[in-house]
C-alpha cells in the first residue's frame, strides 16, 4: 500500500471512509501468522464491513472472495485489509483488536482528526503517521478531479479514468444503478479497499 494513503477528496468527501490493515513484519512476526490473521478476519466480520481482500488473495470480497475459503489460505499470507463506511464500526474493530492484543501491526487510514478521536476513545497511543503531501510532477496528465476521487480508492491504481467515466455515463443514461456502478468499479481493486458506499455518494454528486 501506500494504498489507502492518497485518497483524493474534500474533508466532507473523505468522512466515514476507513481502511484497517493488518500487516505482519518481515523478520518479526511474519512466520506462520495464519492463526492470528484468521482471528483478525473473524474480528473484521463482527462489524458491518464494506469490503475486504488482499493482494495474495487475487480478488476482493465484492468480487466473490469467500471469507471461509480465504481464511484457509491465510497461513501463507502476511496481511489483509478491510474497509468500513461507519466511524462506529472502525472504532469497535480497533477496540476489539486492542483488547485481544494479537500483536500484528494495525494501520488505519482515514481523516486524521477522526482517527485521533477513535484512538482516544479506544485508549490507543498512535505510533507513526504516513501523511499525504499531494500529487507532484506533470499534473496535467491527471484525469479530472471528480474522477480522481474514485480512481484513488484503489491504491495500486488499477481503476482507470476511462472505466470510471464510462460507468458513470451508464448511470446517467439509466442503464445501471448507482449501486451496480460502484460494484463494477470495486472489482479491479483486489485489496478490497475500494469503498462502494463512498463511491455511490461520489457518483450521486456527479449526476
Amino acid at each position: 500500500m501506500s494504498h489507502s494513503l492518497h485518497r483524493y477528496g474534500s474533508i466532507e468527501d473523505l468522512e466515514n471512509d476507513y481502511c484497517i490493515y493488518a500487516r505482519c513484519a518481515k523478520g518479526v512476526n511474519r512466520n506462520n501468522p495464519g492463526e492470528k490473521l484468521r482471528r483478525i478476519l473473524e474480528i473484521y466480520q463482527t462489524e458491518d464491513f464494506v469490503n475486504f481482500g488482499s493482494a495474495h488473495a487475487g480478488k476482493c470480497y465484492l468480487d466473490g472472495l469467500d471469507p471461509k475459503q480465504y481464511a484457509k489460505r491465510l497461513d501463507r499470507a502476511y496481511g489483509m485489509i478491510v474497509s468500513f463506511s461507519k466511524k462506529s464500526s472502525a472504532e469497535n474493530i480497533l477496540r476489539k483488536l486492542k483488547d485481544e492484543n494479537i500483536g500484528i501491526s494495525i494501520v488505519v487510514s482515514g481523516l486524521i482528526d477522526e482517527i485521533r478521536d477513535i484512538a482516544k476513545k479506544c485508549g490507543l497511543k498512535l505510533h507513526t503517521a504516513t501523511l499525504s503531501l499531494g500529487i507532484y510532477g506533470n499534473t496535467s496528465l491527471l484525469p479530472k478531479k471528480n474522477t480522481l476521487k474514485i480512481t484513488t480508492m484503489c491504491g495500486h491504481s488499477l481503476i482507470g479514468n476511462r472505466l470510471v467515466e464510462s460507468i458513470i455515463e451508464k448511470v446517467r443514461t439509466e442503464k445501471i444503478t448507482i449501486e451496480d456502478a460502484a460494484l463494477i468499479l470495486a472489482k479491479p481493486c483486489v485489496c478490497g479497499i475500494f469503498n462502494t458506499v463512498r463511491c455511490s455518494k461520489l457518483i450521486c454528486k456527479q449526476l
Partner: protein
Amino acid sequence: MRINPDKCIGCEKCIIYCPLNCIVKEDKKCKIDEDECVDCGVCKRANICPTDAIFMPRECFDYPRAVRMQFSDPCAYHPSMKSFGRGTEEAKTNDVTGKFKKGEYGLLLEFGRPCVGVRLSEIEKVTVAMRTKGLPILEENPLFGLLEEDDSGHFKKEYVNEKLLSAILETRFKEDELETIIRTILPLLDNLSTVVSVGLVTRFANDGSLPIIKKLEDLNMNIRVRPNAKINVGLGRPLID
C-alpha cells in the same frame, strides 16, 4: 498482456478496463500497445472478454519485462522482497521494526500514481540526482534491487525502458535535514513526464500531535498536508516505542 486476434471479436468491452488506456481498436480487432502495457492484468481479471482472448504471453515472465508485472500487478510476487504489491512495508510495521525512529522522517515517492504510469527512465532522473547529492535510497524496497551497484543512481540498463503502473522510492533522514531534503527533492519532480504521489512518514509526538505539519508550513513552499493519512496505531508486538 496480449489479445489473441484470432479470438477477438472486436466487442471493445476490454478497452475501458485498461488503467493506462493502452487498448485500442484497429481493423475491427482490439489490440494492446505492448510497449505501453504494464502487465497489470486488470483486463484479464475483469473477465469481460466473451471469447477469452486476453492472455499474458510467456515473454512477460522473462526479464527485464517481468518487472512490469512485479510492480504493476499486486497479485504478482516480488521475488527479491518475497512480497506482493509494490514490495515495501513502508511504515505499516514501524511499531515493531523501528524503520523510522523518533527524530527521523521518511519520504515516499510514488511514481506513476495515480492513472499515469512511469518508465524507470523517469524515476532514474530522481535516483541519479539523489545519489549525486548524497541522499540515501532505502534498500528494503524492490526498486533498490534494480539499481546499478556503483552508487550512481542509474538503473541497470536493461530495465531503464520498462514501464510500471507505479513504484515507490523511499528515503529516510534526520529531523534537522527536513528543509534540505524537501527543497532538494520536490523540485526534481517538476520536470518529470509523470506524476508522483508524495508521502511523508513521521512518528507522533508523545502528546499525540504531529509537529511536522507546522514545520512543512513554515517552509513556505505551498506544501499542503492532506487531511487524511495512514496511521500505525501501535498494536504490533513487541512494540518499539
